[in-house]
């Protein structure tokens, strides 16, 4: 405090000796003291707070940017691997679909062939049965006809020849006739 007061007094004394303009070139004591105090405050704040804090902030920012870049890189790699997976899956699905279609087509062909074969078989069977039926009918009809013709001929012959021929000769004649008739067909 003594020092401060004497410093102020000293500059006052020096100032009062010089001319008017010189006074501007001599520091005023209280302003010098205030300047020292103010500079000390600013220096302390800059030294102990501002620069360390800024360093911290910049380091944090650098770390954040770095980690963000790394995360982005990582997710990019992940995304590309995912894409590959999907592409592989899609290709597999396509192949499977193609195989299913081919299988279905094959099965369809088989079924078709089977159905056609069976239908042909059936048609053949129907035709055969029809033939058989026709043949048996014809045989029966022929039998019937032969019997009726025989009876008819006997009746007719009996009536025509009456007693001119004995019964034995008559039968022989008729049988021969029937045989000739049978040989016709």
């Amino acid at each position, binding site marked *: 405090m003594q020092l401060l007061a004497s410093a102020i007094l000293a500059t006052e004394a020096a100032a009062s000796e010089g001319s*008017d303009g010189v006074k501007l070139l001599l520091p005023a004591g209280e*302003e*010098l003291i205030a300047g020292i105090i*103010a500079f000390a*405050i*600013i*220096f302390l704040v800059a030294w102990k707070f501002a620069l360390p804090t800024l360093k*911290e*902030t910049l380091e944090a920012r650098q770390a954040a940017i770095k980690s963000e870049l790394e995360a982005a890189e990582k997710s990019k790699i992940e995304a590309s691997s995912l894409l590959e997976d999907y592409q592989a899956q899609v290709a597999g699905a396509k192949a499977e679909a193609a195989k299913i279609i081919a299988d279905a087509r094959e099965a369809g062909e088989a079924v078709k062939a089977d159905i056609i074969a069976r239908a042909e078989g059936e048609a053949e069977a129907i035709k055969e049965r029809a033939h058989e039926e026709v043949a048996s009918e014809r045989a029966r009809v022929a039998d019937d006809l032969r019997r009726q013709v025989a009876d008819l001929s006997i009746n007719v012959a009996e009536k025509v020849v009456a007693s001119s021929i004995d019964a034995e000769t008559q039968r022989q004649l008729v049988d021969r006739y029937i045989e000739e008739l049978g040989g016709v067909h």
Partner: protein
Amino acid sequence: MGLILASATCDPSTEIICAPENVRELFEFRTPIFYLGPLPVTRTVFLILLAAVIVSLVLYFGLRKKSVVPGKFQVIVEAIITFVKDGIAVDIIGEHGARFAPWLLSIFLFVLMGNLYEVTPFVNFPITSRIAIPAFLALLTYVVFVVAGAKRQGIRYIVDIAWPKSVPVALRPLVGLIELVSTFALRPITLAVRLFANLVAGHLMLTLLLASGWIFMSHVGEIGARAAIGIPWFALGLGIYVFEIVVIMLQAYIFTLLSAVYVQTSLYPDH
């Protein structure tokens, strides 16, 4: 205010510009407003202490949040600090520059704030136009660069300056003398006076032009005469106001830059 009242009596027919009797009236505010202990707090002292408070608050609120994504204010504060730390301290001084960063940063901020008072409305008085501030800062720079040089080079620091090996032997005494004077006498004086003189000149121009213009426009003579003299003065004053905004930033930069250069030449004299 005292100036305006005093100048209200000036007569435009005899004086083209309203100057006070003594320019010291524009710079000396020695009436204490109150006392802080033994320290008389005058207007200037108040502004000096206020500068410290403002700078501290700006630094505190600018850096407090430590946001990874900074806001506008934080970006500005960070840019200023980075500018002084990297653009001046490390760029000029070199590898040891970061150690001088707190000192250079506080010089830059203090001078910048002191200069900014010149163009701050309602303050309009740069504390750096009082020789006490530049002289103290220049003295501090002087101490820093002499101590830095002596610490790094020892006695060779003085010897190399007084007996420079890079010039012919015949010229060494002369060049050595010039170098001694320029390094140890002229450097601190010019450093202080450069800032002081720039701010004194700026403050004088602004005050005389703006105050004269205002007084002529509002107080003196007929309305025609008022406009004829007052408006050009005031317009010129506004032009110089803009110019001074550039000057005060440049002066704060140059003061810091020169402080750094002086330290650099003490540390590495060969460069």
